Each structure stands twice: as C-alpha cells, then as structure tokens.
C-alpha cells in the first residue's frame, strides 16, 4: 500500500492510501494526485516531499515525484508516533509485508530497532491468506477473533503450511472465531518475540495496517502482558512521520 500525507503548517490537510501496482512510480503519482485533489493543489505547490518505505529509492530524486528527502521507515514511525503520543517508547509497525519495532528514549532518539521482512507469518499478508482460507472478509477477521474465548495453538511456523493447518482445523469442527483468534495469537507471538529483542518499555504503541485488526491488538496485549496504545489511523503514522521530516526540513 502507498500512503500519502500532506501537511500544511504541520497539520494534516489531505491523505490517500492506494494499492501499489507493478509500476511503483505510477502508483505513487496516483496516490499523490488523489491527495492533492482533496485540497485542490498541484505538485509545484508542495515545498518538500519526503519518501519512506521499502521503495523510497524509486521516488527519491527520481522523476516524476522527485522526493527531495528520504528517511528510513523506523525513523518515520518514531517521529510520527511521538508527535501524536509523546510518551511512546516502543513503536511496533506491522503492515502487509513486514513488521518492525523500534525503541526510543524520552527525546525520541532511536535506541534500537528490529525488522522482519522475510517471514509472511509475522505480517498482514498472513491474515489475508487466512481470511481466504476461512472464506471471510479480511476486514471482519479481527472482530471475529474477539468472539472466541479459546486458544487453539497453531503449530505451523510458515504461512504456507498454516493454510493447510487451518483447513484441518475447520474439518475438525473448530469454529472460525477460534481459528481467527489462533491466527492473531500466532502473529502476535512472532511480533512480540521480535520486539523483545529491542526491549519492552511503556508506552507501547501499535501502528501500521495490522493495528486496525482488533483481534491482533487484543492478542498483543495478552502476549506482551501489558497495555498497548493504538494510534488513530495507524496505517498513516509512517507517512505522517515522513511528512513531519519534510516540514522540519523547510524550517532549517
């Protein structure tokens, strides 16, 4: 997913969120156009563009977007999270394809970070695959999980094998809500394990698209045995942080 956040005087005035196509440049351009149209501006009216995310080098100093600033995702995450929630000390960002966690001090300086870009079983794509297996809408996955009160441990470490395991569970008359809870627990387990490498410190903040999954949020609380804070519109926090970087660049 490509997210765009437009700021004016550090306030969000427009945003967009579209699925990236094969032509990343075209997709970014489309997302930017969507956001600009919301407030009726054109690209020449944008002072600075900061790029972040896995494909930021595609648009950094490259036409047609020509982003003039690039910043790493974890740094954008921290910046965005701290701006909204200044007492954030650990930010956990789980998106469709990867998960990352970053810890900072009280000044927002990064102490350590960790990421998983390889294992789908620790990212949103796992939910997408399991939604297909359970034949439910991915948007309903979280709420369905909250209807369960039972933990059925999932043995498969890999998304590919987990799909077979889910089918087996269904054939064993395990309910969809119990399976949904197990899947969320499995992801939370992996994300929590990754996060423990950098140390847990409150406040723990969840960002990224997965944070909209209420079942995953519940699983994270239970796994980490601590409260977690979900920031509003969590999928935009990284883009928001990058936009703040762009705003501050103007002020130098």
């Amino acid at each position, binding site marked *: 997913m490509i997210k765009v956040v437009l700021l004016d005087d550090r306030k969000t005035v427009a945003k967009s969120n579209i699925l990236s196509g094969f032509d990343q440049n075209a997709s970014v351009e489309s997302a930017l156009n969507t956001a600009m149209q919301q407030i009726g501006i054109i690209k020449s009216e944008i002072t600075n563009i900061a790029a972040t995310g*896995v494909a930021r080098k595609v648009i950094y100093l490259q036409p047609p977007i020509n982003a003039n600033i690039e*910043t790493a*995702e974890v*740094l954008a995450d921290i910046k965005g999270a701290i701006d909204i929630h200044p007492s954030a000390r650990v930010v956990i960002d789980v998106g469709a394809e990867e998960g990352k966690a970053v810890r900072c001090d009280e000044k927002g*300086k*990064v*102490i350590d*970070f960790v*990421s998983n870009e*390889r294992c789908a079983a620790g990212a949103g794509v796992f939910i997408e695959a399991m939604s297909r297996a359970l034949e439910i809408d991915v948007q309903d996955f979280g709420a369905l999980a909250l209807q369960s009160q039972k933990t059925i441990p999932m043995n498969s470490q890999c998304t590919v094998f987990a799909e077979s395991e889910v089918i087996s569970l269904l054939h064993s008359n395990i309910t969809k809500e119990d399976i949904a809870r197990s899947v969320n627990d499995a992801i939370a387990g992996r994300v929590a394990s990754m996060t423990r490498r950098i140390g847990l410190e409150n406040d723990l903040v969840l960002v990224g698209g997965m944070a909209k999954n209420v079942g995953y949020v519940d699983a994270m609380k239970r796994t980490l045995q601590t409260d977690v804070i979900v920031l509003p519109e969590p999928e935009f926090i990284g883009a928001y942080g990058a936009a703040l970087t762009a705003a501050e660049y103007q002020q130098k």
Partner: protein
Amino acid sequence: MEIAAKYPTERLKCWGKAKEIRKKYYEDYMNAHDSGGLRMVGGAWSFSAIPSGLGDDIFSLTGEPYGANISFNKDFSIKCLEAAEKHGYARTLCAYMRNYWGSILLDKYCLTDGTIVDGFPKPDFIWQDHICCSHAKWYQVVSELEGGIPQFCIDVSVGPYNELNENRLNYVVSQMNDGIEWLQKVTGRDYDDDKLIEAVNNECRSTSLWAEICVLNKAVPAPLDEKTIYALYVLGTILKHSKVVADFYEEVRDEVKDRVNRGIAAVPNESIRVMTDTQPPWGFLKIFRYLEKFGGISVGSLYTFALIGAWEDKEDGTWGPRTTPQQQGIEIKTREQALRILADWNLSKPEWQHFYSHEYKSEMMLRIAREWKLDGVLLHYNRGCEGLTLGIAENRLAIQKAGIPVLAFEGNMGDEREFDEIRTTRQIDTFMENLRKR
C-alpha cells in the same frame, strides 16, 4: 544524502606489494613440487613457524584464507559448495571448510586473480590445531578425500591466557615437540632449530607490527578502512612466520604512520566510525563502500586486529602491540625456548580468548569501541563460522548496554546464498541515518 569530503586521501603505496605477496603464496604452493619442495596444509591458527624447521621449501596453503579466496569468487564458490553438499556434507557446516572440500572434490584450484586451474595441488602433510570443532574435523576429511595424507594436530584448548600456568603451557609445548619428531619421520628431513628460531622471531615481529598498524587506526581520520585492512591482514594469516611478511608489515607501518602524520584519510568524508565483527560476507565486500555514502568507515574489528595481532596492555592503560622477545633483548637459543615463546605468544592472542567466554570478547570489543572512538558497531551474525560467532548475541547486548548503537545483520562469510544484500543495505540505511541524527 551524500556527505561531502573533508579530508585528503591517497591510495596506499604498499597495496600492489601486498597483492604480489599473496599471489606468489598461492602459486608457490601449487608449484612446490617442481623445485623439490613440500606442500603443507592446515589452519591459520596452527603453529606454522614449526614446519619452517624442515627447510626453506615448505610451501603452505592455509585453509581459511583459501576458503575466503574461493568465497570472493562467487561463481566458483557456489560450485564448490554444491559439490560438498552433493558429497553429503550439510549446509550448516563451516563455509570455509565446504568451499575448501568442494575445491578438492572438483579437483580445481583457485588463484588470487580468480583463475581456476585444473588439479587441486595435493598436500604432502597436514599441520593443524584444534581451535574449534570444525577445525578438528576439517583436515580429517581433507586427508580422506586425498586418499590419506599424514596429519598432526595440536590441541590448544588450555583455557584463557589469564589462567595460563606451567602445566598448561607444557601441554601445548610437549605436543609441539612431538610434532617436530613426527615431521621428521613423515618428511624424511632433518629438523633445523635455527630455522625454527628465525621463524619464531619473524612471527613475533610480524604480529606485533600488525597490532602497531591497527593502533594507528585510532587516528581521526583513520588512515585505513577495514576493506583495505582485509587485504593486508591476510598476509599475517598465511605467512606470519616469514621474513617477507615481517619486513612488509614494517613498510606498511611506516606508510600508515606517515598517513597519520599528514592527516590522510582512507575515507575522505569520514564522519561516522564503526567496527564490525567476525569475517565479512566475502562475496559482498561492497557493503563497506556502501557505508562511505553516509561518511561511514569501519576502522577494523576484533577479528582483523586480533586474529593475528599480538597485543598487551601498555603503561598508559591502552591496548598496544605486544613487546617482542627481540625488543626485550631476549635471544632465542634453543628449540625448547623457541617453542615455549611461540606457544605463549599465540595463546595470548586476543582472538583466542573469546572461545572461552563471551564476556572476554565483549570486554575487548568495548575496549576497541572506546579507544578507537567508535560511533556504532556492525555485527555480522555469520552462519558460516561457529567459532567466531560464539556468543555474538551476548556481545550485542553488552555493547548496547554500554550505550553504543549496534546493527546486527545476518549472513555467511562463505556462502552467498545466505546473505541478503538488499535487506542488509536497507538495515544499514536505517542504522547510519540514525547515527547521523545522534
């Protein structure tokens, strides 16, 4: 965002000579029999000064540098690795070892310029030590693959140097004495103690000089970067007992000293100093050049400093080159004296200590971080080497606890299939951007 240059820089004048010494080493081993010489194989940790007593025509092929040489040539390396796997050896084994075995199985020999010649030069004897579990088995397999090559192995697991006592030293020295008797029997040659003494003196000199060169890298800007250091330190792994390398390291020391005096930088935009740990992913040394994009320089590592370097605590409390017997006015006169000095000298090397406790290693790494004025540390979680990655996760925690940022990246020194270049460069992007912001 590119960082502008702020220091003058020059190419190293001794670079060409380093390449020549290394090239000649591999060619000499290959051509040893042409002049009636003997071929010896074994690890870089083995007491290579000892077989020097058999004559000036003992030519060696040191296992790890050869494994690294293959790894650098990725096309040949993958063939060697697959040959080893096809023969039944697991992918989780030491990567140098698998590359080496593969070279034998394919019956091909890799020269330093990447030329692959037919016929792996068969060794005449194996001279090895048990520095780690892989080393203990490595040459047993070599012997089998080559139809039975005589092998002598010295067990060096006598504990850390700070616990060395007479009994433990005697344990190693007695094996060395046995080894000399064995060498004479296997080669049919008489042993020359004068040549042993000369080799021991050369080894003390070259390894002390190497530490002296590393100390010079405390300077800001650093006169050497780690990618360059690899090309220089390797000579100490293959020929530390030779006059050629001892003399060459004197030249290097003098040139590096001159660079420090004139403020010549290895990386002209140096602004972030880091160190690494364990062997690098040899097929991807370009990541060191990638650091330079951020003004980053790796000034060395415990691995490059202390695998061959001989160190001691100096009067001012800093780490410096170990004072050689010659510098102390000690004249080595007998075989026994030479062997005791050789054993003690090697057992004192910092890189030998970490096998016993991750705490020793953390202590040494933190010392380097302080004295070499580092901003961060890059740790290579190197799946290819059980020995040097021993305790590395604990080292990471210790370094972080000391307030020094650490990036751990996964890889393999000798198996390119286990190094994700794109992922690693992304991690470096984040790490270096963070260091710049601090």
